[in-house]
């Protein structure tokens, strides 16, 4: 009995002494989400983008994506465009870093030319879509500061809502409000607020599937621009984890193998 009382006393005092701030809780939720997604090593997937303008006209894009998890640094990714045909074989290589600028290269197959490009264009649209480069980039913990807001029930499941503020230069956003489900720490919704703090875009993620008994990936991501009425749907397929990709598949020379 005495021990139980002591335990209760210790719990009360420790939580009083170390009352977690909203910032700390926001960070720890993000770190936990990151921790649960560690160790996937490498990944291949196909992404189809369906762009819809405010008049409802659609056009589509297809890209092959390969990613490599890098311990202690940002991930590496290779994006190979396969549709429309006029950009087939064009490829985009990115070595991301948590704090210093990313290194990026573009491969132009008609000229067989590899061009090192500036990585400071964060907020520009990716292939004319409603997704900005920064939305599709590797989401390292250090790229944002965080604040926990509250828990809500969303789509029948308990969710954390956290706010995150870009800490990198040239973001198009003042802040993002992120919904993560409490059970699996999966992002189910993000509201993007522009530099003037007006709601710009809403992302929702659908059809989460678990791979290798651990890693959750969405089959579909819908981005709606609330200011222009345009939208983009990303349909993901052919997820392949741990197929043995190495640094060599993500170096500059690998671009020349594409086409």
């Amino acid at each position, binding site marked *: 009995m005495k021990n139980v009382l002591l335990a209760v006393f210790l719990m009360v005092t420790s939580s009083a002494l170390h009352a977690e701030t909203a910032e700390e809780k926001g960070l720890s939720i993000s770190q936990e989400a990151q921790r649960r997604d560690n160790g996937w090593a490498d990944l291949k997937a196909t992404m189809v983008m369906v762009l819809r303008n405010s008049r409802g006209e659609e056009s589509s894009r297809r890209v092959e994506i390969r990613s490599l998890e890098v311990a202690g640094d940002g991930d590496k990714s290779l994006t190979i465009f396969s549709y429309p045909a006029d950009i087939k074989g064009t490829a985009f290589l990115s070595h991301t870093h948590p704090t210093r600028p990313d290194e990026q290269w573009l491969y132009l197959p008609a000229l067989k030319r590899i061009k090192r490009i500036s990585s400071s264009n964060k907020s*520009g649209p990716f292939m004319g879509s409603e997704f900005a480069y920064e939305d599709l980039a590797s989401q390292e913990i250090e790229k944002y500061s965080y604040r926990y807001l509250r828990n809500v029930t969303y789509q029948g499941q308990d969710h954390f809502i956290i706010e995150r503020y870009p800490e990198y230069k040239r973001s198009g956003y003042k802040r993002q409000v992120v919904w993560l489900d409490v059970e699996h720490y999966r992002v189910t919704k993000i509201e993007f607020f522009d530099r003037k703090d007006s709601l710009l875009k809403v992302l929702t993620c659908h059809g989460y599937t678990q791979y290798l008994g651990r890693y959750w990936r969405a089959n579909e991501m819908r981005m709606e621009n609330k200011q222009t009425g345009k939208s983009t749907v990303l349909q993901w397929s052919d997820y392949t984890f741990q197929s043995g990709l190495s640094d060599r598949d993500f170096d*500059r020379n690998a671009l020349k193998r594409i086409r």
Partner: protein
Amino acid sequence: MISIVTRSNGFDEVLRCLRVGCSWKLSVVAIVLSGITQMVTAASSIDGNVRADVRYFLDTSEHRLQSNQISTVLTIEPSWRYESVDRQQLFRMSLSGRVGNIDSQQDAANVKELLFSKFSDDWEFHAGIGQFFWGVTESQHVVDIINQLDLVQDIDGEEKVGQAVVNLTKFTDVGTLDLFLLPGFQERRYPGMKGRLRTQLPVDSALTRFESAAGRHRLDLAARVFDTFGAGELGVSVFSGTSRAPQLSPAVNAAGIAVLAPYYPVMFQWGIDAQYTRNDALWKLEAIRRTVGGSAYYAVTGGIEYGIYGIFETDTDLSVLFEPSFDSRALAAGPFDRDVFVGLRLSFNDAQSTEIVGGLLADTDRSSRMVNLEASRRLGADWTMKLQARLFRNISFDDPLSAYRADSFVTWRLSRFF
């Protein structure tokens, strides 16, 4: 000094080699063929494009017998690609064929690529006919030397002819090392009598001469080391072989007509190309030291490409380019002796990938100006359209561009991709 696509190609070289039986070349062919046969279960794909170029010249032609018609050229460029399942071997083939209405020299067939590649962890081996690009600048490519240029559609030097090659790439601690054996040389082809954008006197390829006793069969050599240092990238290259650009001198041909005779000297070239990428700016430098016929000269191009993203709070990006060029020869063989290039690129980042590009090349000690304007966009999913205007203005008579003084043009290009 306008030249057009050559009709001969590296494939002829391989066939010639098979006939005369040069042993090392044969072993390369054997490796290539064995690689191809191993790809029975390989993944393959076919793609390419068909396009029409309709070109209207703004001024009446100046040179004798030159055509005043609207030029129409139809081009087809199919390519095939086979990759082994283990991704260790790759075979690529890319062809180009075209027909035009003005000048028989517009009709051309070319093997752009017929390349077998083998990949390992720390090396790559490529053999066949290939295309290579070295360099960083946009207005001209002084370091880039492996391929003969294919200037039939445009004089910008971005289109190339395939080069017979054996290339070994080795990944080392000091960067990526590339070694090239280049058997077989391809001559530049020039427009015929009727062609526009030609030299004042037509070039007669029947009068072609080479410095090398081996002529077009000289084995040229090249090497390059390239490395990335964080924000910086540096390439150092060396080339020993037949100059891709000929020296043209007046002559009288067998028919008694005044023409230009091409002479291809042997040259030696050191090159460096470097880029430093910081924030929105790409700082670029290309320089060569070239020794031809016992005398050496330098050529340098460098400058900055600066990106402004999301101008006027739109999705449009603007890139500004500024590239001065210098050539140590008193009167350079090209238009880049003491010139400045200023360029703008507007990318609208829309669903149709609309882009507008403008460039001005201005000679700093003469009045000569060359202006290039291009606007392009995708139509539906499989088509693209491009409008281009190239204007030659105030071209002085001693300028290498002077033969084009009356050749300002507007081109409409429609392409279908498959």
